[in-house]
């Protein structure tokens, strides 16, 4: 997030797209509802009638995968009606003419054709947005899990800059991170192109710095493989060994049949986890890890706040903390490490990572964490980014053209399947499905289908249905509801009994590598 969770309550307007906030980020959802009850406006752009729709002043239900067109359409109206922030555009940005040229092609009528949103609603949304003093854009996977994910994100940033809604409290472009340490994993360089704090692996000076810090030579200066390419290289046979710590790609990745083929083709698969997950069951070696309650360490939340978590109990049996296991393997492979505790590792992180330099153990123990960037011990941390200037100086508008879903419905596969989560479960279910109360509330996968479609296909709530795509077939229970629009079905990926990622399309965004979970073509029928 460019801004902070605490600022949510002071915003004048929320533009919420591709996040089912009350289910996935309940504590942010409830802050947003408080603000709306106090008088803030809420524009929801989401194909589904999620819980927030009840609180929305305007709910735009776009056709799936048409976000760029919708955002361009809104910007076009704001420019045409001269409602944009001239000061901000002139002083802090570049590329306005290019933006104007692209978005001018998205008149309300054109956008209605593409997205199904009525011109009148689009115009109202644009005016409402432009009228707000402090508008906060919030999004999650509904924006990023598309082949055009990067374009969707850029378009959100364009809208914020055009209206001067960045670099001030209660504004900004705010992606909500789905897992408790996604932000931290990225910050720590668990990415193929960067070391910690987004320092690039291709930069020779950065490479030198890390060679010095780590006392070695010959660091790789080329970008590595993303998870998606790891799977395809494994299937081709050029990737021989994969070491997975705490993830379950068999359940979380698209097109599971191919993932299984890829993983089985490896010479060596090492999985380190707290449970024998679907992925761990395929491993050659399984290493038992400690859970969050059995170790200390820091986690970085979606607002960039680095917080400390302490050890409460010992791990079960012989399980050990992930860092201890990794340290042992490094030693056995001829690279001794001498960390006595996570605190020693944080110390090294402080030294090699400019944005984390001031986030020391002593400080976060005293306060409730610190938000990066925090470049030195005296720095108070950063509640919101881009205050007086952008990292690069001026903010560049990056206009994008609308592109359709990678797999559009046809006669054979005539529905769009979109996926997500439910309130009571989390991710691949390895943890939440072992919590009795949560499991009682949401014990099995359900596919949502619109009443009109259901009637035509003779499907009733609780019927077993068969859902198929070009990649596979699953069976699950139907729920007939107008939460989903016509010709769209929705389901979740928490359940091994109905693994929805057998169906999803691995086609992915060329820059971010994120697969298009939010739309693939399927067919649905009642089980005989």
């Amino acid at each position, binding site marked *: 997030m460019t801004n902070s969770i605490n600022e949510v309550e002071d915003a004048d307007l929320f533009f919420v797209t591709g996040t089912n906030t009350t289910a996935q*980020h*309940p504590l942010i959802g409830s802050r947003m509802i408080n603000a709306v009850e106090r008088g803030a406006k809420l524009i929801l752009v989401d194909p589904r009638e999620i819980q927030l729709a009840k609180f929305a002043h305007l709910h735009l239900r776009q056709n799936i995968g048409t976000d760029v067109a919708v955002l361009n359409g809104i910007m076009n109206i704001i420019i045409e009606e001269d409602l944009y922030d001239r000061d901000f555009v002139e002083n802090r940005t570049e590329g306005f003419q290019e933006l104007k040229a692209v978005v001018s092609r998205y008149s309300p009528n054109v956008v209605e054709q593409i997205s199904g949103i009525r011109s009148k609603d689009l115009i109202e949304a644009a005016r409402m947005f432009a009228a707000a003093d402090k508008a906060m854009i919030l999004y999650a996977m509904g924006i*990023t*899990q598309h082949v055009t994910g990067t374009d969707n994100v850029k378009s959100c940033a364009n809208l914020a800059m055009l209206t001067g809604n960045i670099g001030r409290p209660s504004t900004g472009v705010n992606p*909500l*991170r*789905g897992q*408790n*340490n*996604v932000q*931290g*994993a990225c910050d720590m360089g*668990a*990415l*193929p192109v960067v070391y*910690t704090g987004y320092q690039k692996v291709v930069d020779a000076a950065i490479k030198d710095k890390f060679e010095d810090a780590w006392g070695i030579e010959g660091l*790789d200066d080329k970008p*590595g493989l*993303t*998870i998606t390419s790891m799977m395809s290289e494994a299937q081709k046979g050029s*990737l*021989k*060994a994969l*070491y997975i*710590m*705490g*993830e379950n*790609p068999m359940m*979380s990745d698209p097109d599971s049949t191919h993932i299984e083929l890829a993983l089985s083709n490896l010479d*060596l698969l090492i999985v380190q986890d707290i449970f024998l997950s679907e992925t*761990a069951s395929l491993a050659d070696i*399984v*290493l038992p890890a400690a859970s969050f309650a059995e170790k200390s*360490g820091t*986690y*970085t939340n979606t607002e960039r*706040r*680095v*917080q*400390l978590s302490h050890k*409460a*109990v*010992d791990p079960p049996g012989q*399980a050990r903390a*992930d*860092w201890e296991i*990794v340290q042992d*393997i*490094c030693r056995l492979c001829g690279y001794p490490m001498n*960390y006595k505790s996570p605190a020693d590792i*944080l110390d*090294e*992180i402080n030294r090699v990572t400019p944005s984390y330099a001031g986030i020391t153990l002593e400080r976060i123990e005293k306060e*409730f964490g610190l938000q990066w960037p925090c470049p030195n011990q005296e720095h108070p941390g950063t509640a919101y980014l881009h205050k007086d200037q952008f990292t690069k100086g001026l903010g560049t508008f990056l206009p994008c053209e609308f592109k359709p879903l990678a797999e559009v419905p046809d006669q054979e596969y005539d529905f769009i399947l979109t996926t997500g989560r439910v309130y009571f479960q989390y991710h691949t279910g390895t*943890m*939440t499905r*072992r919590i*009795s109360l949560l499991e009682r509330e949401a014990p099995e996968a359900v596919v949502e289908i619109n009443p009109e479609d259901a009637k035509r296909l003779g499907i009733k709530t609780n019927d077993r249905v068969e859902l198929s795509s070009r990649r596979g077939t699953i069976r699950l229970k139907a729920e007939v509801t107008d939460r989903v629009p016509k010709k769209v079905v929705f389901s979740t990926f928490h359940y091994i009994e109905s693994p929805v990622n057998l169906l999803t399309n691995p086609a992915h965004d060329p820059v971010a590598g*994120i*697969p298009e979970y939010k739309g693939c073509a399927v067919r649905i029928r009642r089980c005989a």
Partner: protein
Amino acid sequence: MKKTSAICPFCGCGCNFYLVSEDDRVTGVEPSPNNPVNKGMLCTKGWNSYEFIHSPDRLTTPLVRKNGKLTVSTWDEALGIVSARLKEIMAQHGPSALAFLSSAKVSNEENYIFQKMARAVFKTNNVDHCARL
């Protein structure tokens, strides 16, 4: 009864709570009243997050595949195989034949040491995590 300050293991809000434990068992959680993130509140997932910690399904020993079956093993054996095989594959096929998947569910320190292993020990940038998924 002991109270230990911890961070919820689920979504990216990062709510802060106290794990309440007796002997070596976590028996509940209490939200942190002053934390700026959750100000004394939690969602249902947070309130129940401690339950999986003591699940009977937890892995408690290393497992090694023998004759096609995952078999109970020791740390010495498992880590011996892991390090020998990784070194062997690197020597035979080069660093690009190895890849490392880190996790959006473990700590910063663990992500750091994991990518350091990939880069410093095995000389590859083939390191990623499942955040996008």
